[in-house]
Every structure is written in C-alpha cells, then in structure tokens.
C-alpha cells in the first residue's frame, strides 16, 4: 500500500472506531428508552477467542461491564448467537442457576430479558439484549418486531466497528511509521477549515524539507 493510500484510508479509519462505538451506545440507549427497560447491552462476537464481549451498555452496570467476556455458545446470549433466533424470557430470577451466573458476571440480576441476534449479511455478529422491561400482562409480537428493527441497526453499526478495527490493525501492522502518517492525516482531516489549510501548508513544507534532505 502506498503512503498516500494509507493516509487516505487512515483518515477514514482512525477516529471512526470512536464514532461507531458512539453509534452502538446510541442504539442501546434508545432501545432501553423505547422499551422502558432498566438496561440494554450489545455483545460482539470475538472470532479470535470464540467469546462474546460486552461492547456497549446502557443503564445498570454500564461502567463495569464493557470489555467483559464469556463463552460464545452457553447461556441465553450464546444460544441466541448460535441459533440466530430471538428469545424473550420473563421472570429470570425464578431460575436460581441463571440468576447466579448473571449476578456473578454483571452484578445485576434481571427479572426478564429480550435477546436478539445481530445478523449482517451471512454473519451472526453478536447479540442485543434488553433487560427488565416493566411488568406487563403479556409480551406482544409487535415488540418482537420492534426489537428486530433495532437489531438491524445495531448489526450495521457492529459491522462498521469490526471493519474499522481490522483496518486500524492492518495499518498498525504495516509498520515503518505508517500509523504515524495515518494519524497525522486523520488529525488534519478533523481540523476546521482555516486550521486545516494551515495544517496542510505545514505538512507540505515538512514534506519538502524531508525530500531535500533525502536528495542532499
């Protein structure tokens, strides 16, 4: 990859992880608000370790959960990931084993949860969960459809996040200062008009100096 191309790619990649994380965060915040739930979270499937990782959390337990991992094919989230089927469970606390597991890993015991797979293209990327909806007489299929719509949005955001991370990793691995150049390009890209013009001039001057040194 040429330095120019790397810089161009980097301008799109660096900093985008943060944006995509914000998008995921926004999805769980809205899901939580729409369903009137106590918490909502998104798990990303980590291919390298075959685990599910808390990627975004809204509500109770939010601070401590991000980054926590657990096996990819056990528990309700694992079942949903593997089977690609959504699941709604009420009265989870009636199940002593389930409560214990959840309580140990999250410090928060839900009364019920909705879990839906995040499917993008052919892939099952993760799971969206909404915990503790307010008690209602009966869950309806309309809510299930609504959950599916949120899942689509979350799946797209999760896919973008995965791509951004992979691209960032490739840039970092390519070495020879490519990541420094990339970061610089991303920084200039992010500047306001006037500062940006000045920044580009400064970089052009730097380039000239470096080339002269190279020639001399």
């Amino acid at each position: 990859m040429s330095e120019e191309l790397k810089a161009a790619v980097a301008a799109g990649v660096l900093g985008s992880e943060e944006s995509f994380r914000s998008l995921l965060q926004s999805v769980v915040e809205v899901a939580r608000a729409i369903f009137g739930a106590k918490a909502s979270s998104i798990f990303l499937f980590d291919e390298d370790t075959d685990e599910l990782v808390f990627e975004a959390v809204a509500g109770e337990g939010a601070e401590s959960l991000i980054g926590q991992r657990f096996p990819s094919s056990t528990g309700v989230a694992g079942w949903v990931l593997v089977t690609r089927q959504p699941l709604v469970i009420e009265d989870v606390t009636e199940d002593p084993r389930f409560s214990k597991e959840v309580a140990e890993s999250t410090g928060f015991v839900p009364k019920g949860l909705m879990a839906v797979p995040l499917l993008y293209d052919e892939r099952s990327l993760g799971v969206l969960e909404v915990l503790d909806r307010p008690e209602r007489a009966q869950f309806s299929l309309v809510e299930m459809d609504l959950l599916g719509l949120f899942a689509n949005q979350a799946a797209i955001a999760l896919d973008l996040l995965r791509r951004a991370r992979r691209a960032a990793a490739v840039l970092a691995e390519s070495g020879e200062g490519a990541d420094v150049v990339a970061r610089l390009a991303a920084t200039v890209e992010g500047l306001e008009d006037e500062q940006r013009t000045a920044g580009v001039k400064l970089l052009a001057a730097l380039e000239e100096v470096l080339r002269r040194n190279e020639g001399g």
Partner: protein
Amino acid sequence: MGQPEPDKEKRELPEIPKEYRPAWSLPADAVDSISLAVEWPGQVTRDWAWGDSAGKGVRVCILDSGVEADHPLVGGVQRSVAVSIGEDDEVIVEDDSEGDLCGHGTACAGIVRGLAPDCELISVRVLGAGFTGSGGVLLAGLRWAVEQGFDVINMSLSTTKHQFAGILHELTDAAYFRRTVLVASAHNMPVESYPWRFSSVISVGSHEEPDPLTFFSNPNPPVEFFARGVDVEVAWLGGARIRCTGNSFATPHMSGLCALVLGKHPELTPFQLKSVLYLTSTNVGGGR
C-alpha cells in the same frame, strides 16, 4: 427385407428380484404390493387425527442446547448425546451428562412432553463447543438424528450461511423420504436462513393465543404454521418455570402435535402428516 420382428407375446423375461427392481417405475403386477394402509375418513377431524393419543411409541428428538432430564415438566429423556467435531474434523457423538447449557432445550422438551406425555424424548446437544464451528456441529447433529430414524426432530436452529444451504437441503430431503418429520423454527427477522425455508420441513412461526392446541395454517408460505409462541410457561434450568416468547417455543408445540398424530397413525408419511395438520388447523378444520 429387414429382420423379422420378435414375437412380443412369447418373449420371456427373467424375473427381477423385488429388491433389485427400480424404484422409479411401477409394473402392472406390482400395484397391489404398494396398496397403502391409511384409510382416510370423509372428514379429517382432530378426534380422528389424535383423539386418545398420548404419542406412545413416537421418538421425538430435541436438537438443541441439551435437556435437564430430571425437570418435572420434562419427565425424563430416553437418551442424551452431545455432538462435537474432533481435531481431525471427525464427528464425535457421545453420551451427554452436561444437561442443558442454556435452558432452551429443556423448555422445548417440556412443551413436547406436555402435549404428548407418552412419547420418547431424545436430546441431541449441538451447542456448547463454541460459536466457531457451530455450523458444522449443527449439520453433524442433524445428520446423526436423521440417520437414527427418529419420528420427529424438533429444531429451533437455523443458519444464515449459504455454504450450508445445499447440504441442509439434502439432509432435510433425506429425512422427508425416511419418514422423519423435521419441525423447524421460522425466522421472524428479514434474513435468509435455513432449513426452515425448505418445503420438506414443517416451518413454524408464533401466534399470540394462549391455547397450546390452537394452530393456524399459513396460506402465504414459507412459514407454514403458526403455533403458540407468546408468553408460554416453560421448563427452565434448575427445575424452574419461566415465561418465554419466540418462534422457538412455537416449534415444539407443532412437534408435540406431530407426536400425537403419529402415535395414533404411525404409518403417515411427512407429506400426509402435513396434510393432516393442515386439515385440523384452527383456521381450516375450525379445531374440530
């Protein structure tokens, strides 16, 4: 002049043993040998279909997360196996003592048992060995279950991987011709997934009625039937009972009904069984 025509009337043909006769043709003298046992009534009612049946003798396979055999709503399972893929890609099927790794398999087993108390339940666990490779385990588990000749296979699993679609299609067709009824959860999200879309299986979505015997035939497939799938009380881990929603809980309702019908009419093929379910659907036979 050409050669004389052989005398067709007098030509003697060797007798071909029955087992070597091609299966794609039917000689005139063989018609009696395939006369079918089913006598259809003028009107197929629920009483004809499964009246007095408790699913005795019918083997129902729960292809899922395992089953907690000692749960009161499950009432025991006849066999539990776990499927995994070994280091050399070999399929390993071994007796399973892990129970249920999620709760879902137990829920499905309990629903089937509730409808067909006398059926046999066999748990085939295809979950727990990680997500990576779970597609292969699912296929291996389904293949094993089809080879065992179970009467009903309940599967709430699907895959979105196109690469598995062809093999799954072959497996579901093999099941269909071996008289194994595959009951599969439909997807309620707008994605392509398998095997529920195949016509050789019975695909199931949810309705919101609270009655386990209310089920609807869908005139707009690929989802063929709607069964109870909202706010269902089910068995869960640790002897618990919880309320659940999802097509994956509607599916064992249809599996239970299949067990009831096959308990009374074991000779039915999947095609005939599906026809009976159609004729006894709440929106067709009116639940009579």
